[in-house]
C-alpha cells in the first residue's frame, strides 16, 4: 500500500498560523466584504494619483508671471489657450498622436504573426527561443536599448559602416521622425505579443482545421476566423501600445535628439527646464484628455466587454 506522509508540509502550517492570526484579529471575518477589503490597497494607490492629478489640474489654471516667477492667484484658462494656439505645441500633439497610431498599427502587424507562431508551433525549441527573444529586451531597459540604436544607426554606426563598404555616403538615420517610430515599434513589440498570445491560445486549433475543411484557404481563415476570434487580444494590445507610445518619453528624447519631441518631452521641458509648472500641467491635462478620449472611443466602438476574454459581450 502507498505510504502517506504523516505530517503536513510547512506551507500548510504557515497558512494555519496566518488563519489563526486573522481569526484573532477579526473573529467574525469580513464576510462578503472581504473581497472589497482586498481591493482597498489598489484603490488607495490609484486614489493618491487622483490627488496628484487634482493638484496638476489646479496649477494648470494658473499662469506664470515671468517677471516675478510667481503663479497667479486666480484661475484662468490662459495656459490652455496658449497650448492650442502655439504652433509648437500643436505640432507636438499631432506628432505624438500620429506617431502613436503608426506605432500601434505596425506593432500589431508584427506582433500578430509572432504571437501566432509562438502559440502554435509544435517545436518547443522555437517556442522557447521566441519567448526568450521577447523577454530579453525587458531586462535591458528602454534607455539602454535606445542607446543601442544610436550605436547601430549613428553616422559612424554599424549600418553606415556597412553602407560605406559598398560605396554609399553616410546617411542620417537618426534624429528624425522615422527613427523615433522605429525605436518605439521595437520597444512596443513585446507588449503587443504578450497581450496577443493569450487571445491566440484561446482559439482552439480545431476551429482552424474546421475552417479549412469547410473550404477556406489560410488567408480567409485568418480574416474570417482567427482575427475576429482574437479581437479582444488585438484591442487590448492596441490600447496598451497606443497609450504607452502616446506618452513615451525616452525614445523621442534619445532617437529624436530633441527635434522630435512628443507631449511627454514637452511636459518635461516645462516642468524641469522652463519651470513653467502651469503650462506643463495644462499639457499634462491635455495628454490625459486625449488618451482618455481615445480609450473611451475604442470602448464605445468595440465594447468594454471585448477585453474580458471569452466572457459575453456587455
Amino acid at each position, binding site marked *: 500500500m502507498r505510504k502517506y506522509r504523516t505530517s503536513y508540509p510547512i506551507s500548510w502550517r504557515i497558512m494555519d498560523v496566518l488563519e489563526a492570526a486573522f481569526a484573532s484579529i477579526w473573529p467574525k471575518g469580513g464576510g462578503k466584504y472581504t473581497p472589497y477589503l482586498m481591493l482597498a490597497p489598489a484603490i488607495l494607490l490609484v486614489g493618491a494619483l487622483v490627488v496628484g492629478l487634482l493638484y496638476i489640474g489646479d496649477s494648470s489654471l494658473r499662469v506664470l508671471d515671468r517677471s516675478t516667477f510667481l503663479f497667479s492667484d486666480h484661475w484662468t484658462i490662459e495656459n490652455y489657450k496658449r497650448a492650442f494656439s502655439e504652433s509648437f505645441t500643436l505640432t507636438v500633439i499631432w506628432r505624438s498622436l500620429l506617431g502613436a497610431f503608426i506605432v500601434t498599427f505596425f506593432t500589431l502587424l508584427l506582433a500578430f504573426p509572432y504571437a501566432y507562431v509562438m502559440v502554435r508551433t509544435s517545436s518547443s525549441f522555437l517556442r522557447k527561443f521566441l519567448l526568450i527573444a521577447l523577454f530579453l529586451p525587458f531586462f535591458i531597459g528602454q534607455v539602454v536599448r535606445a542607446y543601442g540604436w544610436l550605436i547601430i544607426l549613428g553616422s559612424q554606426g554599424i549600418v553606415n559602416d556597412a553602407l560605406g563598404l559598398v560605396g554609399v555616403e553616410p546617411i542620417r538615420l537618426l534624429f528624425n521622425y522615422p527613427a523615433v517610430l522605429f525605436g518605439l515599434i521595437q520597444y512596443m513589440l513585446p507588449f503587443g505579443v504578450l497581450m496577443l498570445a493569450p487571445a491566440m491560445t484561446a482559439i482552439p486549433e*480545431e476551429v482552424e*482545421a*474546421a*475552417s479549412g475543411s469547410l473550404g477556406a484557404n489560410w488567408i*480567409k481563415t485568418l480574416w474570417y476566423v482567427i482575427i475576429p476570434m482574437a479581437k479582444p487580444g488585438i484591442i487590448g494590445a492596441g490600447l496598451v501600445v497606443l497609450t504607452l507610445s502616446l506618452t513615451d518619453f525616452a525614445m523621442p528624447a534619445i532617437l529624436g535628439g530633441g527635434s522630435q519631441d512628443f507631449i511627454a518631452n514637452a511636459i518635461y521641458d516645462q516642468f524641469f527646464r522652463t519651470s513653467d509648472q502651469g503650462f506643463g500641467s495644462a499639457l499634462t491635462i491635455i495628454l490625459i484628455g486625449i488618451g482618455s478620449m481615445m480609450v473611451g472611443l475604442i470602448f464605445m466602438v468595440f465594447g468594454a466587454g471585448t477585453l474580458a476574454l471569452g466572457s*459575453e459581450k456587455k
Partner: protein
Amino acid sequence: MTKSAVSAKNVEMQFGPFKAVKDASFELEEGRFLTILGPSGSGKTTLLRMIAGFLTPTKGEIFINGQAVGAVAPNKRSIGMVFQKLALFPHMTAAENVAFPLKMRRFDARTIPDRVSQYLRLVRLDGLENRRINELSGGQQQRVAIARALVFEPDLLLLDEPLAALDRKLREEMQLEFRRIQKELGVTTINVTHDQREALVVSDQIIVMDEGEIQQDASPSVMYRIPQNPFVANFIGVTNAFEGKLTKVSKADATAIFGDSSLVGVLRNGPVEPQEGQKARGAVRAEQIRISATKSELNGLDAQFGGTVADVIFEGERILYEVKVPELGEVPIRIFHHDQNDFATHELGESVHIGWKSRDLHIFVAQ
C-alpha cells in the same frame, strides 16, 4: 456494381518511430455509414484525419470517388467534418456558421439564405438562426455543426467523435439523429468512436481498430455474431474469456480445455491453421448464457455448470449476475438476465445452474 466512395490501400502513418496506423485497407460504398471503432490510441482518429486531409499518409494511398487524394489540402476536398469539440465559430450566429462553407466555396450568393434555412430545418433548428453559439444548448450546437458540415453537399461526411462529450440520453438521441439525417441525404459517412453501442446502432459497416491495425471489417451483426479475434469479441459487448488448449479440431467446430472442463465451440481462426495442443482462447457473451435455479430449465444447452452467485447488479432493463464456477477458473462468469416480470430471482451465495449453446462459444487460436 456500386462504386466505392472511399477506399484505402495499405495506408500507414508514422510519427517518428511510432506507427499510428499500420497497413490499413478498406472499401466503403457510396451512401453507406461506416464507423471506425476502437479504444483511444488505436489509430482511428489518425485514419480519419488522413481521409480529411489534415495528415498525409507516410505509405499507401487513400481514394475518394476513385481519385487518389494524396496531399490534396482539406479545403480542396469535398468533405464535411463534424469535429470532436465541434469547432463552431463563436463570433457568428447559427445561420452564419452554416453559411460559412457556402461563402468560402463561392456558392451563388442569392441561393445561400434558402440553403441555410433548408439545412437548419433538416437538423430541426428552424427559429434559432440568429442565436449566437454560446446561446445554444449542447444538443443544438451539435445540430449546427452537422448542418454546417452538410450544407455544401460534400461527397463525404466525417464525424470525429462529436458525441463523446454528451450525456448518455442526449448522445443516444443524437445517434438516431445522425442516422436519420444520413439516410435522408444518402451521404457517405465515416464516423469515429470508442462507443461500441453507438457503432452498432448507427452503422452499415464497422471497422474495429486496435494498436494501429484493422482487426475486423464487417457489418454490425456480423461483427457482433462472428468476431474474428479475441480483441473484437472483448471489445464489442460484455464477454467472458477463458484461456486454454485446443484438444480436437474438426471442420466447423473445435474442442478445447478451459480450466477443468472440455468445451465445444465454433472455431474462429484467423489466418493460421489450427493445430491440436495449441493455446486457445474462448469467449462467450454475457447475454448468451442462461441462469437458473433448477437444472431442468436449462434443457437444450450443451454446456452446463453449477456455481454460486457472487454478485447481483441491477441495471434497469437487465440484471448482471456474477457467478463463480469452480470448473471454469477463478474469474466469475458474467451473465445478463433479461426478464421484465422478475425481481432479482437469485440471491447472493445462492447455488445456481448456468449454461450456453456450443455455437455461442467462440474459440480463437492464440497467434
